[in-house]
C-alpha cells in the first residue's frame, strides 16, 4: 500500500505542480492573481477537442496549435483587460474572475454542458511495483520536471530572465535601469498562459471536458501556491506534492472518505498556514522568484 500511496501522490502532485507553476510565476513577477489561469487551461482543452473531433486533425498538432493560440489569446486579454488596470490589484483580481466567467459562458454556449474528452497523446499504461500508471501521467510528471528546469534556465541564465527577476524584485528600480517592466509582465503573462495551455494538453486527456472544469483545479492550485508561499516556484512544487500525497493517503487509508481528499488537502494547507503564515517558502526563499 505504501508504494501505491507514493506513486499516486507523485502523479497527482505533478498535475497540481504543472498548473500551479504558471499561476505562481505571474503572481511572483507581475503581482497579478490570475483567477482566469485555469480558464485558459479549459479553453485550450476545448481547442484540442475542436481540432481533433470537429476538424479531424492529429491530437499532437491540435495540442501545439491550441497552446500557441491560447498564448496569443492570453496576450490579447492581458493587453486589453489587465494592463490598463494593473496598478489596482483588486481590480485586476475582479477582472480575471470576470474573464474566467466569460470564457466559461462562451464555452457553455459553443459546446453546451455535455461531458467531452480529448484523446491521450500516448495511450496505455505500465505497471510499476504492481501499480498501474498511465503513460500520459508519466508524460505529465516528466513535463513538470522539464518545465521547472526550463523556467530555472530562463530566469537565471537569460537576459529576459534577468529582466523578469528585476521586475519581480522592484518594478520602479527595474524601470529606472531601462527595463521595460510592462513588456516583461506581458511576456510573463504569455509564458504562464502558454503553460496553462500546455497543462490543458497533457492533463485534460486524463480527465473530462466541461465548461466548469476550471473551478476545482483553481481551488487546488491556489491551495498549492498559498501552501508553498505566494510567488515561490520551489514552494509551489513542494506544495503540490504535499497535497498530492495527502490526497493519496486519504483514498488508501479511508476508502469511504475518498470524497474528502480535496478537503483534507485544503486542511493541510490551513494547518501549515497556521504554523507558518507566509507558507512553506514564502519569505525565507524570496530570492528564488
Amino acid at each position, binding site marked *: 500500500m505504501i508504494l501505491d500511496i507514493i506513486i499516486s501522490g507523485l502523479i497527482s502532485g505533478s498535475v497540481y505542480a504543472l498548473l500551479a507553476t504558471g499561476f505562481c510565476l505571474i503572481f511572483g513577477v507581475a503581482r497579478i492573481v490570475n483567477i482566469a489561469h485555469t480558464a485558459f487551461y479549459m479553453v485550450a482543452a476545448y481547442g484540442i477537442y475542436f481540432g481533433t473531433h470537429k476538424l479531424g486533425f492529429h491530437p499532437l498538432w491540435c495540442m501545439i496549435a491550441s497552446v500557441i493560440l491560447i498564448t496569443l489569446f492570453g496576450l490579447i486579454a492581458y493587453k486589453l483587460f489587465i494592463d490598463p488596470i494593473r496598478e489596482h490589484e483588486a481590480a485586476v483580481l475582479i477582472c480575471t474572475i470576470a474573464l474566467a466567467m466569460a470564457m466559461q459562458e462562451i464555452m457553455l454556449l459553443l459546446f453546451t*454542458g455535455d*461531458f*467531452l*474528452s480529448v484523446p491521450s497523446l500516448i495511450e496505455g499504461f505500465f505497471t510499476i511495483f504492481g501499480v*498501474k500508471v498511465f503513460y500520459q501521467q508519466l508524460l505529465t510528471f516528466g513535463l513538470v520536471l522539464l518545465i521547472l528546469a526550463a523556467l530555472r534556465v530562463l530566469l537565471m541564465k537569460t537576459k529576459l530572465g534577468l529582466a523578469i527577476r528585476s521586475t519581480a524584485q522592484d518594478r520602479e528600480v527595474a524601470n529606472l535601469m531601462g527595463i521595460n517592466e510592462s513588456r516583461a509582465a506581458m511576456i510573463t503573462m504569455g509564458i504562464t498562459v502558454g503553460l496553462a495551455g500546455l497543462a490543458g494538453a497533457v492533463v485534460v486527456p486524463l480527465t*473530462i471536458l466541461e465548461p466548469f472544469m476550471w473551478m476545482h483545479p483553481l481551488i487546488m492550485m491556489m491551495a498549492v501556491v498559498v501552501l508553498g508561499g505566494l510567488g515561490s516556484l520551489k514552494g509551489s512544487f513542494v506544495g503540490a506534492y504535499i497535497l498530492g500525497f495527502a490526497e493519496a493517503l486519504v*483514498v488508501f487509508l479511508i*476508502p*469511504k472518505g*475518498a470524497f474528502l481528499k480535496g478537503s483534507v488537502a485544503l486542511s493541510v494547507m490551513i494547518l501549515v498556514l497556521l504554523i507558518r503564515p507566509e507558507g512553506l517558502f514564502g519569505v525565507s526563499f524570496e530570492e528564488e522568484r
Partner: protein
Amino acid sequence: MKRLKAGWMMMVALCLVLAIALPAWAADVIKIGVIGPMNFVQGKGHWNGATMAAEEINAKGGVQVGQKKMMIELVKADSNEFLNITDATNAMERLMTQSKVDFVVGGFRTEAVMAMQDIAMDSKKIFIGCGAATDELCLRVAKDYNKYKYWFRGTPFNSTYLVRTSFIHMATVGAILKKTLDLPQIKIAVVAEKAMWTEGMIKASEANIPKMGMELVGIWQPSPVATDVTAELSAVQRSGAHIIFTIFSSSVGIPFARQAGELKIPAMQVGINVEAQKEGFWQATQGMGNYVFTTNTYARGVEYNDLTAPFVDTYIKKFGEVPTYNADTYAAIKYTLVPAIEKTGTLDSDKLVAFIENDVHMAPSGTVAYYKDEQGRPTHDLKWGPGFLTSLGVQWQDGQLKGVWPNQWKATPEAPEITYKGIVPVKIPPWVIEKYKK
C-alpha cells in the same frame, strides 16, 4: 393636434381589443411547461421528448377537450439546477405566474425538484417528474395528499426499486462470472459517489451483498465531480474485486469508466452509471468505457411493447441518439396527460388527478400504474416489476449500447420468465477473463 389625439385613442382601443381577444386565442391552447437543465443532456432529453409528443399530437389535430380541439404549446424553462437551485425555483415560478402553464413536465436533481414541486403544488398544477428518483417526492403525496396530489412520478421508478434492479443486475453478472471463470466466491467493491441519494444504496449493499453469497471487499466514495480516480482504482484492484458495483449519477462516471478501462482493472463494472446511459459516453471515454454495464430505460433494438420501437426509432431519426430516460416527457404528455384530458374532457387539475391516479396505461417503457401505500393512500409512485416497469440492463459492447437484461429473468421462482425482444448476452471484458480463467 386633434388628429394626434384621435390616433392615440385608436391605439388605446386597439390595445384593449387585443387584450380582450388574446385570452380567447390562448384558450385554444394547452400550455405545458418543460423544465430542466437545458444546457445539459438531461434538459435536452426533456425538451426533445416533449417536442416530439407535441408535434405528433398537434399533427393529428390536437387534443379533444370536451367539444373542442386544443393544440399543445410547449414553454421551455431552463432550471439550471446543476449549478443553482434558485434558478430552478425561479424558472418554475415563471412558468406558474408569467407563462401560466396548465401542466409541467421535467425536473432532474432531487434537491431542485423538491423545491420546484412545492411551487407547482401551491399553484395546483399537475407536475410530472421526469428525472428525480428519490422516494420522498412521492411519500409527500401520501403524507399530505391535498397539497401534493398534483405530483406524479413519470420516470424513473423510485430509488428503492432502482437499488433492487441494480442488485439483480449485480447478482446476474456475478452468476455469469462465477460460472464462466469458475470462481469460488464473487468479491464486490462498491464505488459510490458521495451524494445524498447513494447513502441508502450503500447501506443496502452492506446489508445485502453478504446475504447474496458474495463478499464485500470495500466501499469507496469519490466526489461526484472527481476527475482523477486512479488512486481509488489502484485500491480497488488491490482488494481483488471481481465486480465493481458503481453508483454514479454525476460526471465522475466518465473518468471512472475511462480510467478503469484504460488501466484494464480486472473487474466488471455493474450498477448505475448515468453517464454511461448516454450516446456521448463512448466518445467521452475515448472508447475505454467498453463493457460498462448500467441500468437504463431504452436501448437500440430493445422493445418492451409495441410502443417502444416507434418511439425509439423516431427519436433516433429526429435527434440522432437513443432517448435517455429524461425523454420520457414524451410518454408523460402523450400517454399520461393527453388521454386523461380527452377521457375527462377537462383541464381541471383535480378532476385529472382523480383520473390519472387510477389509470393503468401503456407507455414505450412498459405499463404505467401507480402505487398506494400500506394504508391505501395514493403515492403517485410508479409500479415496478414484471408486467409494469422493469427498465433494462445495458452494456457497452464495441461502441454500441446493447440491452442485456432481462434475459430469462424470473422475479420469483414461480414468476414467468422475462426476456425482452432485442436482448443480447452479457460480455465479460477479455482482461477479466485473462486474469481469472484457470
